[in-house]
Each structure stands twice: as structure tokens, then as C-alpha cells.
């Protein structure tokens, strides 16, 4: 019986095992090996030692530049998105009328394709005829910048655009907020805690696992930004929005430098692992788990 069950278990998960080997584990290993080679698909790979990594760290300013662009964007978009989506969730959680309607609206941009969003924002950011500069002029009498056509403003533009996607994490925060037991608030009220105190000492700790989850997924996603950059600016102006993912794509599928691109992918992978690890590790200081165990 037990043996039969084990056989059934492995039969059930066998598609995943095959898929894991062919599409995850194998390729991870292959790209690590490839990162020490020169390979253009048409001719066989040539072992190149550390040449790809040496070029990347010492001989390719665009590598560092694309990393910088991605970091700036991440440090802008992730904290702002966190604060904004949490704020809206907290406001919605005050039993405001029309909760489900607001939630539907806030989440809406998340179901629209990346290309459609990118095209829409391309014209919103238009310097002369775009919606944003018109609003700025009407409301604040500011003559807006060129946004995505300006070297200084292109990254802030991407950050502004990313805020439209805040509905995704917001839905999660809202669910977490609704899961906070009300007797905790009542106890806080009896102890004389004001609403700010109750938020800081009850709400935040209770929803901190969700904060962690959202931060980790947001960082991983922003590190991989591609579609919006490809469609809206294609890295411009003057490489000011040359995101890491875009530069990696160019190396792989424009210049067919597969070995170099694989090395770049591994650097990205390592960075994501480090950031995730640091976030998870630090979480024992700021994430509260009710059961005492580790979440996620």
C-alpha cells in the first residue's frame, strides 16, 4: 500500500520533475558553464575562462551603467510602491463604502498587458500633448519636463508608471489587514493606545509577513524590468534607461554573445539571491510570525 502510494506520488509529480530538469536545473547549470565560454549558436562554444566576467567587471562600462540604472529604479519604485499600496490598503480597510469597487479599480492596471501599458504611458509622458504635463500645468502651473525623452527624467518616469501597478500588492495588504483579529485593537484601545500607536504596534507587526513577501517579489520583478523599457525608450535617451534586463537581452539576441549574456544572467541571479537572503535574514528582526515559525 505504502509502496503503491509512493509510486503514485512520483507518477503524479513526474511532469514537474522532467520539467524541472529540462527547464530549470539543467539550464541553470548550462548557463553557468556557458558563462565561461564564447558562444554564438552558429559556431561551437569555445572555452574562454574568466574572460566574460573580466570584460563585464573591468571592460564594459555599459554593464555597470545598466546595473546602476536598475538599482536607481529599484530603490525608487519599491519603497514608494510599498508605502503607497499600504497606505491605500489601510485607508480602504477603514470600512469605507464601495470597498470592492475601489479594489476592482486599483487592481485593473495589473490585468492589462505590459505592451499596452507601455504604449499608453508613452503618450501620457509626451512633452507637448501628453496628459501628465497638461495636468501639471493646469493644477500647479508647472511646465513639465520631457519625461521619457529626457535623460534626467526617464527613470522617475518609470517609477511614476510603476505606481499604477500598486494594486497587486495592495490587494494582499488588504487581505492581511482584514486578517488582523479585532480583539487586539480592542485591547489596545483599553490600554489607551491612540490610532497611530495601534497602527505601529499592532497592525504593522501583524501584517509584516505580507510586507516581506511583497518587498521580495517587487525587488525580483524590478530587477528584471524589460518590456516597458524595450517598448517605451529602448534604453534611451543616451542609455539613460538601459535596464539590466534590456542590456542582457541585447547581448543574447541582438549581438548573439550567448556566453557573455549567460555571465550577466548569473550575476543577476547572484544579486537576487543575495538581496532575497538579506531580506529573509533581516526579517527575523522586523517580521512577526504569530506561530513563531518561519512564514513564506
Amino acid at each position, binding site marked *: 500500500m505504502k509502496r503503491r502510494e509512493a509510486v503514485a*506520488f512520483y507518477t503524479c509529480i513526474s*511532469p514537474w520533475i522532467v520539467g524541472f530538469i529540462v*527547464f530549470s536545473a539543467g539550464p541553470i547549470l548550462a548557463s553557468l558553464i556557458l558563462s565561461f565560454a564564447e558562444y554564438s549558436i552558429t559556431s561551437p562554444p569555445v572555452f574562454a575562462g574568466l574572460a566574460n566576467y573580466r570584460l563585464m567587471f573591468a571592460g564594459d562600462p555599459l554593464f555597470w551603467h545598466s546595473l546602476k540604472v536598475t538599482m536607481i529604479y529599484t530603490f525608487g519604485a519599491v519603497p514608494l510602491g510599498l508605502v503607497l499600496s499600504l497606505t491605500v490598503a489601510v485607508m480602504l480597510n*477603514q470600512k469605507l463604502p464601495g470597498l470592492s469597487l475601489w479594489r476592482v479599480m486599483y487592481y485593473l492596471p495589473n*490585468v492589462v498587458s505590459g505592451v499596452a501599458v507601455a504604449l499608453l504611458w508613452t503618450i501620457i509622458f509626451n512633452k507637448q*500633448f501628453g496628459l501628465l504635463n497638461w495636468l501639471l500645468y493646469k493644477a500647479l502651473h508647472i511646465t513639465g519636463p520631457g519625461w521619457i525623452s529626457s535623460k534626467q527624467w526617464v527613470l522617475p518616469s518609470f517609477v511614476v508608471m510603476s505606481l499604477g501597478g500598486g494594486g497587486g500588492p495592495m490587494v494582499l495588504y488588504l487581505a492581511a489587514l482584514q486578517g488582523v483579529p479585532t480583539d487586539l485593537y480592542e485591547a489596545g484601545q483599553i490600554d489607551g493606545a491612540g490610532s497611530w500607536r495601534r497602527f505601529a504596534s499592532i497592525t504593522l507587526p501583524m501584517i509584516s509577513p505580507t510586507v516581506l513577501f511583497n518587498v521580495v517579489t517587487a525587488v525580483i520583478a524590478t530587477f528584471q524590468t524589460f518590456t516597458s523599457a524595450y517598448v517605451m525608450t529602448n534604453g534611451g535617451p543616451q542609455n539613460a534607461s538601459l535596464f539590466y534586463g534590456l542590456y542582457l537581452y541585447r547581448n543574447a539576441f541582438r549581438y548573439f554573445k550567448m556566453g557573455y549574456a549567460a555571465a550577466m544572467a548569473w550575476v543577476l541571479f547572484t544579486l537576487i539571491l543575495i538581496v532575497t537572503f538579506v531580506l529573509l535574514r533581516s526579517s527575523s528582526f522586523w517580521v512577526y510570525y504569530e506561530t513563531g515559525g518561519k512564514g513564506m
Partner: protein
Amino acid sequence: MTTVAATSGVPTRRRAQSARVLVRAILLLLVAAGALFIMLPLLWMIVTSLKEQHETYLMPPWRLPAVPQWRNYLTALTDLPFGRYYLNTLTIVVPVLLADVLANALIAYGFARLRGPGKDVLFLIVLSTMMLPGQVTMIPVYILFSKLGWINSYRPLIVPALFGNAFFIFLLRQFFRTISTELDDSARIDGCGYFSTLWRIIMPLSKPALATVAIFSFMANYNDFFGPLIYLNSNEKFTAALGLQFFQVRRGASPWHLLMAATVVNIVPCVLLYGFAQRLFIQGIVFTGVKG
């Protein structure tokens, strides 16, 4: 003494109450402002799609067109073979959807219900692949498909779905675990094997979760840009998302009215699906995000 306290207590209470009403009104206003920030671009997209070209340069930007130009939609959709692009998209999205529902149900059933050596470790690996950035595996996988001669075909976009997806496995496994095992046991007594238990008991009881998987699968593949971009290179094989971007490349961004008409058409299926199934959406997101 008590009467004094009572009478002086009423106005303060009323004041506190009206303060609370005011706070809620302000909150509501802020929430509405945020919703406007989200909705305005989408409304503007529709307005722009109905303008004549010269009207797109008139201020204010949201001024309604003198006469709505419905034929913009026809022009935009026939300028490139969009009909074909949408058919192409369906030939990818439909088989992937079926594979996603069936393969992941099977795999998730194994993880949720059956015991076997190494199960916990294997499930941990499933979870960790959710965090795996696509860029790391994309190059060898691309090379594999190009060696198989699959470039410029739909196979690289369909075949991987047969092998499950960590996110869906996780979602379904979580759901399956909420179903009472007593049902499995009584099915077993009635002579059901493992697979007919899955098919006859678990899957019918999991319709909401399976529908969520189907919806997410449809959305992800309908909206996918990167996969079609690297695997499809001949024009007549393009998907809708790729065709939309190609439209912008070919016509430039300047005929905004046509570009926005094509964009509106592109987002309609997803927005409609979302409108009809938004409860499943929210449940699906919450399920995978919170109940980790």
C-alpha cells in the same frame, strides 16, 4: 451629579462622532483621487482612440472628439493583419491553458495528498523555483529550442506548460489541502484509485481554484511579450502583444488615435474577463500571497 456628567457628555460624543465622519470623508476623497489616477489614463486612452489625428494635438487632452471616429478601430486593425495575430494568440493560449490546468492539478494532487520519499524536499524546490529569474534559464532553453529547430514556431511557447508551473502547483496544492481527506477515503473504499479520486472527487470540488489557474494562465500568455519576441521572427506568426508593439514600430508613435484604438482592442479581453471573474482573481492572488 450623574445628570451633569450625562448632559456634558453628549456634545463631546457628538463632536467626536462628527470628527470621525470628517476623517472618513477625507479618506474616501483620497481613495477616490487614487482611483482617478489609475482610471484616468485608461479613460484617456479610449477618448484618444476616437479622435481624428489633428484632434490629438488639441488641448485639453481629454476634450471629446467632435465626432467619435469609430472607423479608427477598423483602420488600426486592418493596417496590420491583427485578425491573424489574434488567431495566432489563441493557438498558443488555448493549449497552454488546458495543459496548465491538467498538468498542475496532477502535480499538485501528488504534493497535497500522496506520500513518497523526499516529498518535503521536492516541494521546497518547487517553491524556490518560483523565485528563479527567467533570465537565468532563458539562454540555455533558447539554445535547446533552436537546436530542436523550434525557433519561429509556437512549440517553445506551448510545450513547457506540459511540465507544470511552480506558482500554479503551489496555488492548487494549497487549495486541495483544504478539502477534507474523508472524501478521498470514502472514494478509496468505493474502489477509486488515486487518479480517479483526483478526477472525480478533488477536481470537481476545486472548480474555483482551477478556474483561477485558467484565468491566470490566459492572462499571462495573452499578455506575454518576451517569449513571442525571442521565439517568433516572421511577421505572420506574431501574437497580438507582439503585433501591437510592431504597430508602434512601423507607424511611429505619432498617429495616437490609431495606436490607442489598437491598444484598446488589445486590453478588452482581459478587462472583460477581469470584470466577470474579479472575485476569483482576488481570491487567487490572496491565496498564493498570504497563506504561504
